[in-house]
């Protein structure tokens, strides 16, 4: 018995020692894979050919998993498309599930110290961490999504998601039977409040009786909470839902409860085909291609890019079969108007839900106005959290 115990222990220890030794040994060889004997002749010939330029190393930090089916998934689609476009001129990598805590700074600094020359931080919470890292790596370009602070080598990009929300709202306004829409909202910042308003304004443009109920979950990605909020909205009488959260949970909940909903950030048809009216998507590829091209050509400069339907960054796609032909046409027409710059979502007269006029008749909201939207338009129920 004693022998057995001893031999067990011995085996385990030997295994541990062997593996550690193996690690140390193999690790040293790892940085030069070209040393394999089969490759040696090729390596000798190499100097004849023109030396290929090193690919531009590009890194993406994601707040959720690439399989979230929404926000992060859409960013990763953009990354893949850029990779296809530039081929071996670039080399991309990503780290997913990077929390908006002290960890973000470590991940981003590591990306920069690994020789990545272009780094995309794809959530608001990476703003301060990126600002801390940027001055240490002057030759690295930092791109931050949806923030408002920049530096010499850090610029901001964002999309006009509200354009998609408006068109989705028009479809919702036509499809609702209870005249009550539901919105699952994430974190009460202008971007999200804007989308709630645009959704409501779109619906009211075709159906003035529409009201919107909102539930905030204070998270970007939390399928459990998203589903709970959707259930609460449906129980409160909402029959068409939209969300500004990152997963398809709202659509799935609507499907289960026999109501209608939209996909958000990416095409979510497959998550709830019976409930899916359409998807308000973000196509990050055009911007990622532009930013990478800027970096490759040496034309990268500090600027803010805020792209919408016109640049191909926002679209409403995959309208469901239950959407009548005339409603589909209406949506397509509005998209065309927005693309051509003939229609501005933020057109007066615009009333807040406290009854005060925000934009006078014929006034248009400019980007400064849009950046600071922290009120609900008439028809949205409740108050923006913490807005006194």
């Amino acid at each position, binding site marked *: *018995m004693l022998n*057995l*115990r001893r031999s067990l*222990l011995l085996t*385990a*220890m030997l*295994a*541990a020692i062997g*593996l550690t030794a*193996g*690690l*140390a*040994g*193999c*690790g040293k060889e*790892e940085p030069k894979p070209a040393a394999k004997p089969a490759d040696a002749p090729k390596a000798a010939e190499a100097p004849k050919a023109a030396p290929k330029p090193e690919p531009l190393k590009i*890194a993406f930090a994601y707040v959720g*998993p*690439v399989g979230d089916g929404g926000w992060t998934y859409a960013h990763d689609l953009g990354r893949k498309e850029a990779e296809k476009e530039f081929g071996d001129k670039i080399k991309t*990598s*990503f*780290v*997913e*599930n*990077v*929390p*908006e*805590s*002290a*960890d973000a*700074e*470590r*991940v981003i*600094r*590591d*990306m920069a*110290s*690994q020789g990545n020359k272009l780094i995309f931080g794809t959530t*608001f*919470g990476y703003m*301060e961490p990126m600002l801390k890292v940027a001055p240490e790596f002057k030759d690295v370009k930092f791109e931050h999504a949806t923030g*408002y602070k920049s530096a010499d080598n850090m610029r901001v990009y964002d999309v006009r998601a509200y354009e998609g929300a408006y068109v989705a709202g028009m479809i919702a306004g036509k499809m609702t039977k209870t005249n009550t829409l539901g919105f699952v909202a994430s*974190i*009460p*910042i*202008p971007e999200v409040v804007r989308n709630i308003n645009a959704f409501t304004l779109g619906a009211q443009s075709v159906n003035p009786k529409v009201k919107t109920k909102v539930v905030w979950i*204070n998270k970007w990605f939390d399928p459990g909470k998203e589903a709970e909020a959707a259930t609460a909205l449906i129980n409160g009488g909402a029959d068409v839902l939209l969300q500004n959260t990152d997963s398809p949970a709202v659509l799935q909940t609507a499907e289960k409860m026999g109501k209608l909903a939209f996909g958000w950030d990416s095409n979510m048809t497959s998550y709830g085909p019976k409930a899916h009216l359409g998807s308000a998507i973000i196509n990050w590829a055009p911007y990622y291609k532009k930013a990478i091209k800027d970096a490759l050509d040496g034309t990268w400069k500090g600027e803010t890019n805020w792209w919408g339907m016109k640049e191909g960054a926002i679209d409403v796609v995959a309208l469901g079969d239950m959407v009548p032909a005339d409603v589909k046409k209406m949506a397509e027409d509005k998209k065309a108007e927005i693309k051509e710059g003939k229609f501005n979502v933020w057109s007066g007269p615009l009333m807040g839900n406290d009854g005060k006029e925000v934009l006078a008749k014929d006034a248009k909201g400019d980007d400064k106005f849009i*950046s*600071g939207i*922290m009120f609900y338009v008439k028809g949205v129920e409740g108050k923006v*959290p*913490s*807005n006194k």
Partner: protein
Amino acid sequence: MLRLEARPVPSKLMGYAAPVIALAITVVFGTLLFLALGKNPAASLRVFFVTPLENARGLSEVALKMIPLLLCSLGLAICYRSNVWNIGAEGQLVVGGVAAGGMALLASPDSTRAFFVLVLLAGMLGGMAWAAITALLRDKFNANEILVSLMLTYVGGLLLIYLVNGPWKDPKGFNFPYSKTFDAAAMVPKLFAGTRLSWGVLIVVVVLAAAWIFLSKSKAGFRLQVAGQAPLAARFAGFSAREGIWASLLLCGALSGLAGALEVAGPLGQLTPQISPGYGFAAIIVAWLGRLHPGGCVFASFIMALIYIGGELSQSRLGLPAAITGVFQGMLLLALLTADTFIHYRLRKA
């Protein structure tokens, strides 16, 4: 055939060997996993266990990650040894961070450099106050401390969200739910330039020594543990069970609160809606992995920090998915539980 037979006396040797064996098993299964994923297992394991420790910055980041895990796990070890099932270290950490943040917001550019001491004290008091609610409910109403401490974690999280969305929101922050960044005086001074490591490390070393002395050498620590593990014997000896509940929870609250304070007045430098990626929960694993012993907790928090950081590196270096980190943690725990069986049992030929 082999069968398990209870040992007459738990094996001391296995008590120490089990974590090592568990680690070895994890490495073996990790190797198989990497092979199945088509990666070179040696290179992959290297990224997990060696790359994070290769330079000063890497080491400092592992240490930074260990601080909150270690502080919370020490607090939890005291609780569990006293038979108090506090699983709310996360909430105590968050409320500690809130209190520390509130104090830090009071600092001004003219504040003395020692202001950060107040910030850390506020954090400890905040954590203690939060833990005191659990202690009070358990003491007065015999409420189940597992449920109370867990639920209070969510309340603590919402308190933080309320404050950063409301009264403590940066007025110049475009309504983003973040406080203003703290003045330098409120921040814990850096230990080495070029790293994110602060004096917090030194504080943790002192706390560690104190925890060890308290648990293993002091009469107060002994009373606490007897009161928890053998209430009748404790009463016979004149030790109070109530004292055990209060003391262990308050100590854990103070340590978790300190962890929160060191995060917000350290690497974060402001209050944000998320100040912890779940350190308080991960610390439960750390405490058990570390055998509820301060020295073991150091070892366990080191391994956990390594797996977290190695998981990130395996994404950027090898293109592995983030889920690998969770798989590794799961394997480690499962292997430990398996190996633990042999502390109380042995194999015999049937």
